[in-house]
Each structure stands twice: as structure tokens, then as C-alpha cells.
């Protein structure tokens, strides 16, 4: 692992119209890490991911990715810089087939997975290639949303609640897939409500409340911090 973080965010503020949602978020992710953002509904976790991608109306602060400041960049420039985004609603296009959905994000650099690799990780997607993207089950749609950002060469992946609304057995499959993706050297920033799922995968957790980071917990600290987490997350 190199010394400089892959992504470092400082004093990140974001607004939707008049409402001020993020109040100075600061966090760092090193290459190869899996980091989660934990917090209650409305704490600003998803907005943090959207702000990194430039998908909020207004944002300020500093977002440095591999040494480049992205705070003034357009979403397409941020995507091209090497950040892959898997949105909360999964963002599967109903007017496109499964295969078209998978091949839609342009390749932005080397280091992406080959299509064969992706199909061996997600065998369902090969069989369903010609059907409409939204004809898939919820779990398959989630896998498609994950799979399509693996082949572009993006090395930092943002996942927004990949287990939302899925059956426990599917959640375990998704956990295994994200674990495999991490083993392949991708860096992952994960937003999750499902704490058990997140604790299986993550090296570190940032606890977010009211648009601010209130605590940072490493995997080793989890047992001793269990009590605080339960109170703060209400789990």
C-alpha cells in the first residue's frame, strides 16, 4: 500500500436547493481498502457518494482522487478519472438489454475485468443477455449494476446500499461477490444499512450523523465499540 490515500475528502459540504445536507465530511481511503459509511436514514451517506460523483446541485470542499482535485469537475470527468458508481436505485436501463446495460459504461483505462471474467463471476447475466435489463430479479439487477462498473478500468468503486430490499440468501451472494472484487484489488466505498453485511467486508467504518463524520472504527475495534454503534445506529 502506498502512503498517500487513494481518495481523501476534506470539509465536504453539499446542498439540495436550499437545504444544507453535508456539513464538512472528511474521510480517507487507501488503495485496496474496503470502507463503509454507516449511519441512520437521512444522515447523508448516499449524498456523500453522490457528492463524490458530482451528482448534487451544489458542493464545496476538497475531493482529491489519486492526487487530482475533483471538486470542480463534471460527473463525466469524475467517472473518467477512475471512479465507478453503483447507485442506490441500481440504475438499470429498461430500454436496454442486459448485455447493453453491461457494456454501456465506456472503458476509461486499463485494469478492468474481462467480459469472460465477469460472466464467470455472474453466470446469470450471460444467460439473460438478450432480455430487457429491468426484467431481471432484484438480486440479478443488483449484480448487473455491480458487474457493469468492473470492466471499465475504474479502480475505486462506490456502492450505494447494494443489499437494499434483497432476500438474505441473495445478500450472502452479493457479500461473496464484493469480497471477491476486493480480493482482485479494487478499492471500495460502501454505503450500507445492513451492519452485519458491512462488518463482514469492511476494513474500516465511518459513522455519519447529520452530515458529519462522528467516529471512525477499524475492524479490530468493532467488539469494543459494539455498544456505541448499537446506540447510534439503533440496531
Amino acid at each position, binding site marked *: 500500500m502506498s502512503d498517500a490515500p487513494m481518495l481523501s475528502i476534506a470539509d465536504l459540504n453539499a446542498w439540495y436547493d436550499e437545504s444544507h445536507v453535508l456539513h464538512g465530511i472528511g474521510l480517507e481511503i487507501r488503495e485496496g481498502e474496503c470502507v463503509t459509511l454507516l449511519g441512520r436514514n437521512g444522515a447523508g451517506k448516499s449524498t456523500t457518494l453522490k457528492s463524490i*460523483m*458530482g*451528482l448534487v446541485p451544489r458542493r464545496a470542499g476538497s475531493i482529491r482522487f489519486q492526487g487530482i482535485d475533483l471538486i470542480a469537475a*463534471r*460527473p*463525466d470527468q*469524475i*467517472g*473518467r478519472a477512475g471512479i465507478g*458508481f453503483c*447507485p442506490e436505485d441500481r*440504475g438499470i*436501463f*429498461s*430500454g*436496454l438489454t442486459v448485455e*447493453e446495460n453491461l*457494456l*454501456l*459504461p*465506456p472503458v*476509461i483505462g486499463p485494469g478492468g475485468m474481462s467480459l469472460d471474467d465477469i460472466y464467470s463471476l455472474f453466470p446469470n447475466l450471460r444467460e439473460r443477455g438478450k432480455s430487457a435489463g429491468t426484467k431481471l430479479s432484484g438480486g440479478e439487477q443488483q449484480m448487473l449494476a455491480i458487474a457493469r*462498473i468492473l470492466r*471499465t478500468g475504474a479502480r475505486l468503486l462506490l456502492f450505494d446500499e447494494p443489499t437494499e430490499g434483497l432476500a438474505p440468501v441473495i445478500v450472502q451472494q452479493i457479500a461473496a461477490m464484493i469480497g471477491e472484487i476486493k480480493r482482485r484489488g479494487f478499492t471500495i466505498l460502501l454505503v450500507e444499512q445492513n451492519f452485519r453485511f458491512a462488518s463482514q467486508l469492511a476494513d474500516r467504518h465511518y459513522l455519519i450523523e447529520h452530515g458529519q463524520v462522528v467516529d471512525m472504527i477499524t475492524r479490530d475495534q468493532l467488539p469494543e465499540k459494539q455498544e456505541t454503534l448499537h446506540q447510534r445506529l439503533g440496531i
Partner: protein
Amino acid sequence: MMMIFGKPAPLLFGQLLLGIINGSFYAMLSLGLAIIFGLLRVINFAHGALFMVGAFVTWGLFHYVGIGFWPALLIAPVIVASLGLGIERGLIRFTYKLDILYGLLLTFGLALVLEGLFTNGFGSSGVAYNAPDLLSGVVNLGFMFLPVYRGFVIFAAIVICTAVWFIIEKTRLGALLRAATENPSLVQAFGVNVPRLIALTFAGGVGLAGLAGVLAAPLYSVNPNMGSALIDTVFAVVVIGGMGSIGGAILTGFGLGIIQGFTEVFYPPASSVVVFAVMAIVLLTRPAGLFGKAA
């Protein structure tokens, strides 16, 4: 004389041909409108005026520069598309964050300005443009006489519509367009320059109107109002086919042209309203249009 449904066969076939010719232009124009509406959510009222500009550019290329029909098929659409690019970058893009009515009013105003400028420059009676020698004359099909140029227009319209359908539905560029129609911000986050895609789509859509204008020049009188005469029907075609549906625009365009042609034979007074009667029936029974997805 052979009779079909109590009408002389030559009359019937003649009107059928006219219907298919009109349908060709409905299809080509509604195609561009549907593509533009799908991605930009702009109801482009300037579409007919840009069709007219395409016809005038064709005439001007020959009249002033001596460039004939065949090169004009390529040059005139490029000129109209460039004009479209300027209109999108200079004007229309400022309406995206506003209510859809602003884009409609802006393009409606643009249409009036363009028609006014051409009326001022060339008068309202129009100018004449001849079909190229290769396509002049008539062939005897046995059951009717077919002017060669009209046959060419139908052939060209089918080729153009099929090509555009193929690009939108079967290519990577088309997949990007369809995806950006659904969720532009996600497509942009994937690294696609969506504002540029939108500008080029508008240029491409009005370029199609320009191309239709070239094909129309030898057929109709090239005059400043030739676009507004067609555009009402073309909007009805887009609505009947389903807003934003490419295949729907093509099939409805040809279909309505034919229906209009037959109405001309059997009950001429209804021929100018039949399209709108069909539109009313379709909207009552299928509000999203024949080929549209429910909104």
C-alpha cells in the same frame, strides 16, 4: 376501366402513391422529432422550418454555386445540422432546467423567424427546383405510371428510416442515446459527456429534417411555408406513434400517409382532418400512443 371498391383503379393507385410519398416525409420528419424529444425533452417546433431551410439550401447550392442534387443530399443536411448545433448551444440548452413550455415557445419563435427571413428574401410564392436528369421521366408499372423521382423518394425514405432505426436500436451509440434518455446523470457519471451527446443528437435530428428537405425540393414548390404546412400532421404522427418511439414514428408516418391518400379517394372533404380524427381516437384509447410505453 378496372374498378376497385367502385373507384377507378388508376385513381386509387395514384392516391395510394401520393399517400406513401406524404407518408415518407411524415416518417422522416417525425423520426427526428421523436429522437430530439426523447433525449432533450424539447418539442421542436422549428423542425418544419429547418426542413424548409434544407430545401432552400438545396436550391441555393444549385442556383448560386452550381452544385447539383446528388452532392446536395450530403451538403445540405450537414449545413442544416450545423445550424442546429448553433441553435442548441446558443439557445435551446438554456431551457433544459425550465418548464418544457419554454423550449416549445423558443423553437416556435425560431420557426417564425426563419420563415420570416426566407419570405423576406425569396417571397412567399417559392422557387422551382428540378429533379436530376437520372431520376426524371416515368415508368409504366402495368397498373399505373410511376414518376421515377417519386419512386426514388419512397426508396430513399425507407433506407433512411431503416438506417436511423438500426443506429438507435442496434448500435452502441444508440444504446448510449436510449440510456441517456432514461437517466442522463447516471450515464454522465459513467464518463460520457452527455451535454455533447445532447447537442450532437439535436444536430442529427434536424440534419434529418434537412435531408428530407433536399428530397422534397424537386417534389414540392420550395417556399418558406412548406415546413409549416407539414408540421401539424407530423406532430400528430409523433403523438399517435407514441412520444419518443422511433419505430412507432416510422410506421405511423407511412400508415397515416396511406390513410390520408385513401380518404382522398373515398371522401375527399375528410382528407385534411382524418389524421387528427385518428389522433383523437388513439389518445382516447391509448394515451401513450400506439407504440409508446405508458408514461
